[in-house]
């Protein structure tokens, strides 16, 4: 870089006097006004600190966080919430019965305790949700990051591949996989069936974010400093484009829970030996007229769980995206 700047300006204006080419007011003519003090001790801020400051003021965040905490507790320690086993001690005489002593929500058609079945079904829903998001996030980051960062033919191949998976609605794809895998129905196989077709939305979100970030100055600076392309992607581009991935992950967790329940409801999901809200809803559908509570209660558990994750996703999206913040 050639420099045109050779030194301090030769035309020095004396403060307080009248010399040089332009007028400078003498100190006694205008009173000194204090400028805004620069707070040196102020805490540094970044996207995540800002987002936290925003999120902690929103009641919706605390409501959804509390719900998720509760659901997670129920999933991890069902024993705290109920002593009644979900499958044993089912007495057909209690079929579709109302609340009784020790059975606060009544009984299913098979005479099992509804409350206990809901409590024990929680871990199934959450397990499927978490396995699916591990899958979709891994695949989504791999495909999205390489496609967005390397561009060119890598992008063309990876994006077309994503298009193909995206073109099959993932519940329909899972229906096909699960009908084929009818002998292998488990939490793992259903999560695989959902996850394998649900990742392209994560990849698309990450790819477009990386396309935006990779032209930033700090990326050019790292290139100038001699960092390899892969290290730039890993250390600078990815951490700066991960925010929308977190939002879509929260929402796809809710989507995966719905997908598992839908598949179980259709009878191609989990086997009847596995506790699942979808299975219970499936079992209860023929008694909608006579015993609506057997269908409504697991539906409420399912909907509240999904609601918690979706609203958390929305709150986090609002916090991470200044444009979304303006809409409130």
């Amino acid at each position, binding site marked *: 870089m050639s420099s045109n700047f050779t030194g301090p300006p030769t035309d020095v204006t004396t403060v307080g006097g009248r010399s040089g080419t332009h007028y400078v007011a003498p100190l006694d003519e205008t009173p000194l006004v204090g400028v805004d003090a620069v707070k040196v001790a102020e805490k540094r801020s970044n996207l995540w600190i800002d987002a936290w400051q925003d999120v902690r003021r929103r009641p919706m965040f605390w409501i959804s966080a509390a719900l998720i905490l509760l659901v997670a507790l129920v999933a991890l320690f069902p024993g705290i919430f109920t002593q009644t086993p979900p499958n044993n001690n089912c007495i057909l005489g209690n079929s579709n019965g109302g609340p009784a002593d020790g059975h606060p929500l009544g009984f299913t058609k098979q005479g099992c305790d509804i409350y206990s079945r809901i409590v024990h079904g929680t871990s199934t829903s959450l397990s499927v949700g978490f396995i699916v998001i591990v899958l979709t996030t891994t695949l989504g980051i791999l495909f999205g990051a390489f496609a967005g960062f390397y561009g060119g033919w890598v992008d063309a191949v990876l994006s077309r591949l994503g298009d193909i998976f995206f073109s*099959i*609605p993932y519940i329909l794809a899972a229906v*096909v996989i699960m009908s084929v*895998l009818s002998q292998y129905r488990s939490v793992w196989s259903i999560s695989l069936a959902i996850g394998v077709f649900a990742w392209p939305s994560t990849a698309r979100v990450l790819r477009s974010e990386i396309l935006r970030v990779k032209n930033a100055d700090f990326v050019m600076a790292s290139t100038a400093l001699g960092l390899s392309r892969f290290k730039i992607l890993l250390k600078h581009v990815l951490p700066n484009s991960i925010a929308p991935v977190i939002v879509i992950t929260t929402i796809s967790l809710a989507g995966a829970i719905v997908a598992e329940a*839908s598949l179980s409801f*259709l009878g191609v999901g989990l086997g009847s030996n596995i506790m699942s809200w979808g299975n219970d*809803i499936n079992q209860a559908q023929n008694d909608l007229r006579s015993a609506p509570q057997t269908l*409504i209660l697991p539906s409420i558990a399912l909907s509240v769980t999904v609601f918690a994750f979706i609203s958390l996703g929305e709150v986090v999206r609002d916090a991470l995206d200044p444009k979304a913040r303006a809409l409130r």
Partner: protein
Amino acid sequence: MTGYIFRRILQAIPVFMGTTFLIYFMVFAMPGDPIVALFGDKTPNPAVVAQLRAQYHLDQPFIVQYLIYLGGIFRGDFGLSFSGEPVTAILARTFPVTARLAILALLFETFFGILVGLISGLRKGKLFDASSLAVSLVLISLPIFVIAFVGQYVFGVWLGWARTTVGSGAPLQDLILPALVLASVSFAQIVRLTRASVIETSGLDFVRTAYSKGLSSRRVIPVHILRNSLIPVVTYLATDFGVLLVGATITEGIFNVPGVGNTLYQAIIRGEGPTVVSFVTVMVLIYLVVNILVDLFYGLLDPRIRYVK
């Protein structure tokens, strides 16, 4: 425009090949014998197995099987259903019903969605806005089969306003409740999209100009704000078509609507693998075609899309 149409269709070919290949691969290259799976728990007769194996060309190499299957699709041959009826004949019978249900649902969700979203956006932060946001969040969180059962119970059993199952021939008044259920999820999404879009557009310079040159809000709101806010909604409707197809499968099953979705639903419930695959293929093809059509329509609306990429 011709070049754009050509390019868009050319782009669809690898996706079409890929999706059909994937579906085919999922069914025939998975662990487990598809022919044995057909029989469920029963032990099949070896002669029947051999005959079915020949019928589905399972004695040929995988890629040959796929090409035979692909050739069938091009000739409009989607195979036979479990009861031996050609899939195309079932489609001809059931498609009009599903089309009627889907169009009704699309009308409901776009009309009410845009209306509620517009009012919400114009009254940002007021009571109406807050409550419509809350209602839409709840609707998004409810799986469609829960909405269907609640609708069936409240309007069918409890209030007695509608029939819980749709009669033969699917008369329009019977389809209103299933269509409302099918529309509910997308309705909530359209409300949110329209609201966000209206708020964004209302803050733009041309709206201020319109007001400052003395136009009344009766002109500015529909012509300047609403029209410019609808582009994301059109895009959403296209991507949402897959959700509509899955929703139609479940809604038609629960309300017993004699449509394409119900045929798939019944096949899933009875575990009729080949029928499931045929109908999923049909639905994926419909989805692909709709997306191409929407893209073409979109290119017609917005010239920028035709030229970029």
